[in-house]
Protein backbone atom coordinates (compact mmCIF):
# COMPACT_ATOMS: atom_id res chain seq x y z
CA UNK A 1 0.00 0.00 0.00
CA UNK A 2 1.10 3.52 -0.69
CA UNK A 3 2.61 5.42 2.16
CA UNK A 4 0.12 7.86 3.60
CA UNK A 5 1.28 10.85 5.56
CA UNK A 6 0.01 14.29 6.39
CA UNK A 7 0.53 17.50 4.51
CA UNK A 8 -0.74 21.02 4.69
CA UNK A 9 -3.54 22.14 2.41
CA UNK A 10 -3.67 25.88 1.80
CA UNK A 11 -6.43 27.70 -0.02
CA UNK A 12 -6.08 31.33 -1.02
CA UNK A 13 -9.08 33.21 -2.37
CA UNK A 14 -7.59 35.80 -4.65
CA UNK A 15 -8.60 38.41 -7.19
CA UNK A 16 -7.92 37.16 -10.70
CA UNK A 17 -5.56 40.02 -11.59
CA UNK A 18 -3.45 39.13 -8.56
CA UNK A 19 -3.17 35.41 -9.31
CA UNK A 20 0.09 35.75 -11.17
CA UNK A 21 1.73 37.26 -8.10
CA UNK A 22 0.52 34.47 -5.84
CA UNK A 23 1.99 31.88 -8.17
CA UNK A 24 5.28 33.72 -8.18
CA UNK A 25 5.36 33.94 -4.40
CA UNK A 26 4.58 30.24 -4.07
CA UNK A 27 7.31 29.33 -6.52
CA UNK A 28 9.77 31.62 -4.79
CA UNK A 29 9.41 29.76 -1.49
CA UNK A 30 10.16 26.54 -3.33
CA UNK A 31 6.61 25.32 -3.69
CA UNK A 32 5.89 25.11 -7.41
CA UNK A 33 2.84 22.82 -7.27
CA UNK A 34 -0.66 24.28 -7.26
CA UNK A 35 -4.11 24.00 -8.77
CA UNK A 36 -6.44 26.91 -9.47
CA UNK A 37 -10.19 26.53 -8.93
CA UNK A 38 -12.95 28.78 -10.25
CA UNK A 39 -15.56 30.52 -8.13
CA UNK A 40 -18.88 32.02 -9.13
CA UNK A 41 -19.74 34.74 -6.66
CA UNK A 42 -19.32 35.79 -3.08
CA UNK A 43 -19.92 38.32 -0.36
CA UNK A 44 -17.90 39.78 2.47
CA UNK A 45 -17.17 43.02 4.23
CA UNK A 46 -16.67 44.78 0.93
CA UNK A 47 -20.04 43.75 -0.44
CA UNK A 48 -21.28 41.27 -2.98
CA UNK A 49 -19.37 40.40 -6.11
CA UNK A 50 -20.20 38.14 -9.02
CA UNK A 51 -18.21 36.97 -11.96
CA UNK A 52 -19.49 38.83 -14.98
CA UNK A 53 -16.26 38.85 -16.92
CA UNK A 54 -17.10 42.00 -18.86
CA UNK A 55 -15.13 44.05 -16.38
CA UNK A 56 -11.93 42.26 -17.32
CA UNK A 57 -11.72 39.97 -14.35
CA UNK A 58 -11.61 42.88 -11.94
CA UNK A 59 -14.60 41.45 -10.20
CA UNK A 60 -13.54 37.81 -10.46
CA UNK A 61 -11.89 35.66 -7.86
CA UNK A 62 -10.30 32.25 -8.00
CA UNK A 63 -8.99 29.82 -5.41
CA UNK A 64 -5.29 29.04 -5.42
CA UNK A 65 -4.92 25.61 -3.86
CA UNK A 66 -1.64 24.07 -2.83
CA UNK A 67 -0.68 20.99 -0.88
CA UNK A 68 2.64 21.32 0.78
CA UNK A 69 4.77 20.56 3.81
CA UNK A 70 4.26 22.43 7.07
CA UNK A 71 7.48 24.35 6.74
CA UNK A 72 6.83 25.51 3.22
CA UNK A 73 3.31 26.41 4.21
CA UNK A 74 4.71 28.67 6.92
CA UNK A 75 7.10 30.27 4.51
CA UNK A 76 4.38 30.76 1.93
CA UNK A 77 1.99 32.36 4.39
CA UNK A 78 4.74 34.63 5.68
CA UNK A 79 5.59 35.69 2.16
CA UNK A 80 1.92 36.38 1.48
CA UNK A 81 1.55 38.67 4.46
CA UNK A 82 2.07 42.01 2.74
CA UNK A 83 -0.67 41.11 0.26
CA UNK A 84 -2.93 39.67 2.89
CA UNK A 85 -3.69 42.96 4.50
CA UNK A 86 -3.52 45.16 1.43
CA UNK A 87 -5.48 42.99 -1.00
CA UNK A 88 -7.91 41.32 1.36
CA UNK A 89 -6.91 37.76 0.56
CA UNK A 90 -8.62 34.97 2.41
CA UNK A 91 -6.27 32.19 3.45
CA UNK A 92 -7.27 28.93 5.08
CA UNK A 93 -5.04 26.10 6.12
CA UNK A 94 -5.82 22.56 7.13
CA UNK A 95 -4.14 19.23 7.51
CA UNK A 96 -4.87 16.46 5.05
CA UNK A 97 -3.63 12.94 4.49
CA UNK A 98 -1.82 12.50 1.23
CA UNK A 99 -0.57 9.47 -0.59
CA UNK A 100 2.92 9.59 -2.01
CA UNK A 101 3.77 12.52 0.23
CA UNK A 102 7.21 12.86 -1.31
CA UNK A 103 5.50 14.79 -4.07
CA UNK A 104 4.53 17.57 -1.73
CA UNK A 105 7.81 18.45 -0.10
Amino acid at each position, binding site marked *: MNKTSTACRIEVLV*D*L*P*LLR*RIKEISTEVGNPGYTVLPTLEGAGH*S*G*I*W*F*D*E*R*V*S*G*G*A*GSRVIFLTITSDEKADQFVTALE*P*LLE*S*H*GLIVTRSTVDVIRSERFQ
Partner: protein
Amino acid sequence: METLLSPVILFFVLGFLAAFARSDLSIPEAISKGISLYLMAAIGLKGGILVAESGFSQGLVSAALAGILLSIIIPFMAFFVLKSFGRLDVTNAAAVAAHYGSVSVVTYVTGVEILTGNGLPPEGYMVAVLALMETPAIIVGLYLASSYSGKQQNSAVGSRGELLRETLLNGSVVLLTGSFIIGMIIGKDGFASIAPVFESAFRGILCLFLLDMGLIAARRLQQARSLTPRLVFLAILFPIINGFIGVLIGTLVGLDVGSTTALAILAASASYIAVPAAMRLALPKADSGLYLAMSLAITFPFNVLFGINIYTQLASWMIGT
Protein backbone atom coordinates in the same frame (compact mmCIF):
# COMPACT_ATOMS: atom_id res chain seq x y z
CA MET B 1 -36.00 59.88 -29.35
CA GLU B 2 -35.85 57.66 -32.36
CA THR B 3 -32.48 56.46 -31.16
CA LEU B 4 -34.05 55.30 -27.93
CA LEU B 5 -36.25 52.98 -29.94
CA SER B 6 -33.41 51.27 -31.76
CA PRO B 7 -33.19 47.55 -30.95
CA VAL B 8 -29.75 47.96 -29.40
CA ILE B 9 -31.02 50.41 -26.80
CA LEU B 10 -34.24 48.52 -26.21
CA PHE B 11 -32.34 45.36 -25.37
CA PHE B 12 -30.29 47.35 -22.89
CA VAL B 13 -33.47 48.61 -21.27
CA LEU B 14 -34.91 45.10 -21.22
CA GLY B 15 -31.84 43.81 -19.39
CA PHE B 16 -31.94 46.67 -16.95
CA LEU B 17 -35.60 46.19 -16.14
CA ALA B 18 -35.28 42.41 -15.89
CA ALA B 19 -32.46 42.65 -13.35
CA PHE B 20 -34.31 45.34 -11.48
CA ALA B 21 -37.33 43.13 -11.18
CA ARG B 22 -34.94 40.48 -9.84
CA SER B 23 -35.50 38.10 -12.74
CA ASP B 24 -32.94 35.31 -12.87
CA LEU B 25 -32.22 36.09 -16.51
CA SER B 26 -28.47 35.94 -17.05
CA ILE B 27 -26.01 35.40 -19.85
CA PRO B 28 -23.19 32.93 -19.21
CA GLU B 29 -19.94 34.75 -18.48
CA ALA B 30 -18.12 32.88 -21.22
CA ILE B 31 -20.64 34.22 -23.73
CA SER B 32 -20.33 37.79 -22.43
CA LYS B 33 -16.60 37.63 -22.63
CA GLY B 34 -16.71 36.04 -26.07
CA ILE B 35 -19.04 38.73 -27.39
CA SER B 36 -16.95 41.47 -25.88
CA LEU B 37 -13.86 40.10 -27.68
CA TYR B 38 -15.86 39.85 -30.89
CA LEU B 39 -16.95 43.49 -30.63
CA MET B 40 -13.36 44.64 -30.17
CA ALA B 41 -12.12 42.62 -33.12
CA ALA B 42 -14.95 43.90 -35.29
CA ILE B 43 -14.55 47.55 -34.37
CA GLY B 44 -10.78 47.31 -34.78
CA LEU B 45 -11.11 45.73 -38.22
CA LYS B 46 -13.63 48.28 -39.39
CA GLY B 47 -11.48 51.18 -38.26
CA GLY B 48 -8.42 49.71 -39.94
CA ILE B 49 -10.25 49.19 -43.19
CA LEU B 50 -11.51 52.75 -43.22
CA VAL B 51 -7.99 54.01 -42.64
CA ALA B 52 -6.66 51.71 -45.38
CA GLU B 53 -9.10 53.34 -47.74
CA SER B 54 -8.71 56.97 -46.85
CA GLY B 55 -5.09 56.82 -45.77
CA PHE B 56 -3.70 58.30 -42.59
CA SER B 57 -4.65 61.92 -42.60
CA GLN B 58 -3.50 64.84 -40.56
CA GLY B 59 -6.74 64.40 -38.64
CA LEU B 60 -5.39 61.23 -37.07
CA VAL B 61 -2.50 63.00 -35.44
CA SER B 62 -4.63 65.82 -34.09
CA ALA B 63 -7.28 63.41 -32.86
CA ALA B 64 -4.69 61.20 -31.20
CA LEU B 65 -3.09 64.11 -29.39
CA ALA B 66 -6.48 65.44 -28.40
CA GLY B 67 -7.46 62.03 -27.06
CA ILE B 68 -4.31 61.58 -25.02
CA LEU B 69 -4.63 65.09 -23.66
CA LEU B 70 -8.20 64.40 -22.60
CA SER B 71 -7.27 61.17 -20.89
CA ILE B 72 -4.68 63.04 -18.84
CA ILE B 73 -6.60 66.14 -17.83
CA ILE B 74 -9.92 64.45 -17.11
CA PRO B 75 -8.64 62.33 -14.20
CA PHE B 76 -6.97 65.38 -12.65
CA MET B 77 -10.18 67.36 -12.70
CA ALA B 78 -12.27 64.42 -11.60
CA PHE B 79 -9.92 63.63 -8.74
CA PHE B 80 -10.31 66.99 -7.03
CA VAL B 81 -14.06 67.07 -7.48
CA LEU B 82 -14.38 63.55 -6.12
CA LYS B 83 -12.24 64.39 -3.12
CA SER B 84 -13.97 67.64 -2.25
CA PHE B 85 -17.58 67.53 -3.42
CA GLY B 86 -17.69 63.74 -3.59
CA ARG B 87 -16.14 63.32 -0.14
CA LEU B 88 -14.03 60.36 -1.17
CA ASP B 89 -10.64 59.62 0.36
CA VAL B 90 -7.53 59.96 -1.77
CA THR B 91 -7.35 56.34 -2.83
CA ASN B 92 -10.97 56.05 -3.90
CA ALA B 93 -10.94 59.45 -5.59
CA ALA B 94 -7.86 58.46 -7.59
CA ALA B 95 -9.31 55.09 -8.57
CA VAL B 96 -12.62 56.55 -9.71
CA ALA B 97 -10.84 59.40 -11.53
CA ALA B 98 -8.78 56.91 -13.52
CA HIS B 99 -11.97 55.27 -14.76
CA TYR B 100 -13.32 58.54 -16.13
CA GLY B 101 -10.06 59.36 -17.86
CA SER B 102 -10.09 56.06 -19.69
CA VAL B 103 -12.75 54.90 -22.15
CA SER B 104 -15.55 52.39 -22.61
CA VAL B 105 -15.40 50.34 -25.80
CA VAL B 106 -19.08 49.47 -25.79
CA THR B 107 -20.20 53.05 -25.32
CA TYR B 108 -18.03 53.91 -28.30
CA VAL B 109 -19.42 51.05 -30.35
CA THR B 110 -22.99 52.01 -29.53
CA GLY B 111 -22.20 55.61 -30.39
CA VAL B 112 -20.74 54.66 -33.75
CA GLU B 113 -23.84 52.62 -34.55
CA ILE B 114 -26.07 55.57 -33.75
CA LEU B 115 -23.87 58.07 -35.59
CA THR B 116 -23.70 55.85 -38.65
CA GLY B 117 -27.45 55.45 -38.52
CA ASN B 118 -27.71 59.25 -38.56
CA GLY B 119 -25.38 59.58 -41.54
CA LEU B 120 -22.49 60.88 -39.45
CA PRO B 121 -19.97 58.04 -39.38
CA PRO B 122 -16.75 59.01 -37.58
CA GLU B 123 -13.36 58.54 -39.24
CA GLY B 124 -11.84 55.08 -39.06
CA TYR B 125 -8.83 56.29 -37.14
CA MET B 126 -10.98 57.13 -34.13
CA VAL B 127 -10.55 53.46 -33.23
CA ALA B 128 -6.85 54.08 -32.87
CA VAL B 129 -7.66 57.05 -30.63
CA LEU B 130 -9.87 54.76 -28.58
CA ALA B 131 -6.97 52.35 -28.07
CA LEU B 132 -4.61 55.19 -27.19
CA MET B 133 -6.98 56.53 -24.55
CA GLU B 134 -7.30 53.31 -22.59
CA THR B 135 -4.08 53.51 -20.60
CA PRO B 136 -2.81 57.01 -19.77
CA ALA B 137 -5.51 57.67 -17.17
CA ILE B 138 -4.35 54.66 -15.18
CA ILE B 139 -0.93 56.19 -14.77
CA VAL B 140 -2.41 59.52 -13.81
CA GLY B 141 -4.65 57.81 -11.27
CA LEU B 142 -1.73 56.02 -9.65
CA TYR B 143 0.30 59.20 -9.64
CA LEU B 144 -2.53 61.03 -7.89
CA ALA B 145 -2.97 58.28 -5.35
CA SER B 146 0.68 58.15 -4.40
CA SER B 147 1.39 61.89 -4.40
CA TYR B 148 -1.61 62.78 -2.31
CA SER B 149 -1.59 59.89 0.08
CA GLY B 150 2.12 60.23 0.60
CA LYS B 151 2.85 56.51 0.55
CA GLN B 152 3.91 53.93 -1.97
CA GLN B 153 0.79 51.92 -2.65
CA ASN B 154 1.61 48.84 -4.57
CA SER B 155 5.00 47.66 -3.48
CA ALA B 156 3.68 44.20 -2.71
CA VAL B 157 2.57 43.49 -6.22
CA GLY B 158 5.58 44.47 -8.24
CA SER B 159 7.01 47.61 -9.68
CA ARG B 160 5.08 50.32 -11.42
CA GLY B 161 6.84 49.46 -14.66
CA GLU B 162 5.46 45.98 -14.53
CA LEU B 163 1.97 47.28 -13.92
CA LEU B 164 2.31 49.61 -16.86
CA ARG B 165 3.43 46.76 -19.07
CA GLU B 166 0.45 44.70 -17.97
CA THR B 167 -1.94 47.52 -18.67
CA LEU B 168 -0.53 48.22 -22.10
CA LEU B 169 -0.80 44.53 -22.91
CA ASN B 170 -4.29 44.26 -21.51
CA GLY B 171 -6.26 41.90 -23.75
CA SER B 172 -8.67 44.54 -24.93
CA VAL B 173 -5.95 46.99 -25.94
CA VAL B 174 -4.04 44.29 -27.78
CA LEU B 175 -7.06 42.92 -29.60
CA LEU B 176 -8.30 46.36 -30.60
CA THR B 177 -4.91 47.48 -31.86
CA GLY B 178 -4.15 44.16 -33.50
CA SER B 179 -7.46 44.05 -35.35
CA PHE B 180 -6.98 47.65 -36.41
CA ILE B 181 -3.66 46.75 -37.97
CA ILE B 182 -5.11 43.63 -39.58
CA GLY B 183 -7.88 45.81 -41.01
CA MET B 184 -5.29 48.14 -42.50
CA ILE B 185 -3.43 45.22 -44.04
CA ILE B 186 -6.34 43.36 -45.54
CA GLY B 187 -8.32 46.39 -46.68
CA LYS B 188 -11.81 46.24 -48.12
CA ASP B 189 -11.11 43.31 -50.44
CA GLY B 190 -9.65 41.04 -47.81
CA PHE B 191 -12.51 41.94 -45.53
CA ALA B 192 -15.24 40.81 -47.92
CA SER B 193 -15.02 37.14 -47.01
CA ILE B 194 -15.22 37.77 -43.27
CA ALA B 195 -17.76 40.58 -43.48
CA PRO B 196 -20.75 38.32 -42.78
CA VAL B 197 -19.38 37.79 -39.28
CA PHE B 198 -17.70 41.10 -38.53
CA GLU B 199 -20.12 43.42 -40.28
CA SER B 200 -23.56 41.97 -41.03
CA ALA B 201 -23.82 40.25 -37.67
CA PHE B 202 -22.48 43.20 -35.72
CA ARG B 203 -25.70 44.93 -34.71
CA GLY B 204 -27.53 41.78 -33.76
CA ILE B 205 -24.69 40.62 -31.56
CA LEU B 206 -24.45 44.08 -30.07
CA CYS B 207 -28.10 43.73 -29.03
CA LEU B 208 -27.30 40.60 -27.07
CA PHE B 209 -24.32 42.27 -25.46
CA LEU B 210 -26.32 45.29 -24.40
CA LEU B 211 -28.96 43.01 -22.94
CA ASP B 212 -26.19 41.64 -20.75
CA MET B 213 -24.86 45.10 -19.96
CA GLY B 214 -28.33 46.09 -18.83
CA LEU B 215 -28.49 43.11 -16.51
CA ILE B 216 -25.06 43.80 -15.08
CA ALA B 217 -25.61 47.53 -14.69
CA ALA B 218 -28.82 47.03 -12.75
CA ARG B 219 -27.29 44.36 -10.54
CA ARG B 220 -24.29 46.53 -9.78
CA LEU B 221 -26.62 49.38 -8.93
CA GLN B 222 -28.60 47.24 -6.53
CA GLN B 223 -25.47 46.07 -4.77
CA ALA B 224 -23.67 49.40 -4.58
CA ARG B 225 -23.72 50.15 -0.89
CA SER B 226 -21.21 52.99 -0.88
CA LEU B 227 -22.91 55.01 -3.58
CA THR B 228 -23.99 58.35 -2.08
CA PRO B 229 -26.36 60.78 -3.82
CA ARG B 230 -23.39 63.06 -4.39
CA LEU B 231 -21.52 60.33 -6.22
CA VAL B 232 -24.55 59.47 -8.32
CA PHE B 233 -24.74 63.13 -9.23
CA LEU B 234 -21.07 63.16 -10.23
CA ALA B 235 -21.46 59.98 -12.28
CA ILE B 236 -23.94 61.92 -14.41
CA LEU B 237 -22.17 65.27 -14.29
CA PHE B 238 -18.77 63.88 -15.36
CA PRO B 239 -19.91 62.51 -18.73
CA ILE B 240 -21.74 65.74 -19.52
CA ILE B 241 -18.74 67.93 -18.71
CA ASN B 242 -16.21 65.60 -20.28
CA GLY B 243 -18.38 65.18 -23.36
CA PHE B 244 -18.63 68.92 -23.64
CA ILE B 245 -14.86 69.33 -23.38
CA GLY B 246 -14.52 66.55 -25.95
CA VAL B 247 -16.74 68.40 -28.40
CA LEU B 248 -14.82 71.60 -27.79
CA ILE B 249 -11.42 70.06 -28.38
CA GLY B 250 -12.66 68.03 -31.35
CA THR B 251 -13.98 71.21 -32.94
CA LEU B 252 -10.79 73.09 -32.18
CA VAL B 253 -8.54 70.51 -33.82
CA GLY B 254 -10.82 70.53 -36.85
CA LEU B 255 -12.50 67.13 -36.78
CA ASP B 256 -15.76 66.55 -38.64
CA VAL B 257 -19.06 66.24 -36.75
CA GLY B 258 -19.01 62.45 -36.54
CA SER B 259 -15.43 62.27 -35.31
CA THR B 260 -15.93 65.14 -32.90
CA THR B 261 -18.89 63.35 -31.41
CA ALA B 262 -16.83 60.17 -31.23
CA LEU B 263 -14.11 62.02 -29.35
CA ALA B 264 -16.74 63.44 -27.00
CA ILE B 265 -18.10 59.95 -26.40
CA LEU B 266 -14.62 58.70 -25.58
CA ALA B 267 -14.08 61.60 -23.19
CA ALA B 268 -17.48 61.12 -21.57
CA SER B 269 -17.29 57.36 -21.20
CA ALA B 270 -15.73 55.59 -18.25
CA SER B 271 -13.70 52.40 -18.44
CA TYR B 272 -14.95 49.18 -16.97
CA ILE B 273 -12.41 46.75 -18.37
CA ALA B 274 -8.77 47.76 -18.33
CA VAL B 275 -8.97 50.23 -15.44
CA PRO B 276 -10.82 48.15 -12.85
CA ALA B 277 -8.39 45.30 -13.38
CA ALA B 278 -5.42 47.61 -12.90
CA MET B 279 -6.97 49.23 -9.83
CA ARG B 280 -7.63 45.91 -8.13
CA LEU B 281 -3.91 45.30 -8.35
CA ALA B 282 -2.46 48.70 -7.70
CA LEU B 283 -5.01 50.34 -5.44
CA PRO B 284 -6.57 47.36 -3.70
CA LYS B 285 -7.90 49.51 -0.87
CA ALA B 286 -10.15 51.34 -3.31
CA ASP B 287 -13.72 50.09 -3.26
CA SER B 288 -14.32 48.08 -6.45
CA GLY B 289 -18.06 48.05 -5.81
CA LEU B 290 -17.98 51.83 -5.93
CA TYR B 291 -16.02 52.45 -9.10
CA LEU B 292 -17.79 49.71 -11.02
CA ALA B 293 -21.15 51.06 -9.92
CA MET B 294 -20.34 54.60 -10.99
CA SER B 295 -18.84 53.57 -14.29
CA LEU B 296 -21.02 50.62 -15.28
CA ALA B 297 -24.29 51.27 -13.53
CA ILE B 298 -24.71 55.04 -13.91
CA THR B 299 -22.36 56.60 -16.45
CA PHE B 300 -22.70 53.82 -18.99
CA PRO B 301 -26.52 53.83 -19.05
CA PHE B 302 -26.54 57.62 -19.03
CA ASN B 303 -24.27 57.80 -22.05
CA VAL B 304 -26.09 55.13 -23.97
CA LEU B 305 -29.54 56.50 -23.30
CA PHE B 306 -28.88 60.24 -23.38
CA GLY B 307 -25.26 61.27 -23.60
CA ILE B 308 -24.56 60.09 -27.13
CA ASN B 309 -27.49 62.13 -28.42
CA ILE B 310 -26.48 65.20 -26.45
CA TYR B 311 -22.91 65.13 -27.74
CA THR B 312 -24.14 64.63 -31.30
CA GLN B 313 -26.43 67.64 -31.07
CA LEU B 314 -23.71 69.72 -29.50
CA ALA B 315 -21.17 68.80 -32.14
CA SER B 316 -23.60 69.40 -34.98
CA TRP B 317 -24.43 72.77 -33.51
CA MET B 318 -20.82 73.77 -32.90
CA ILE B 319 -19.46 72.60 -36.24
CA GLY B 320 -22.68 73.37 -37.96
CA THR B 321 -23.97 70.93 -40.50
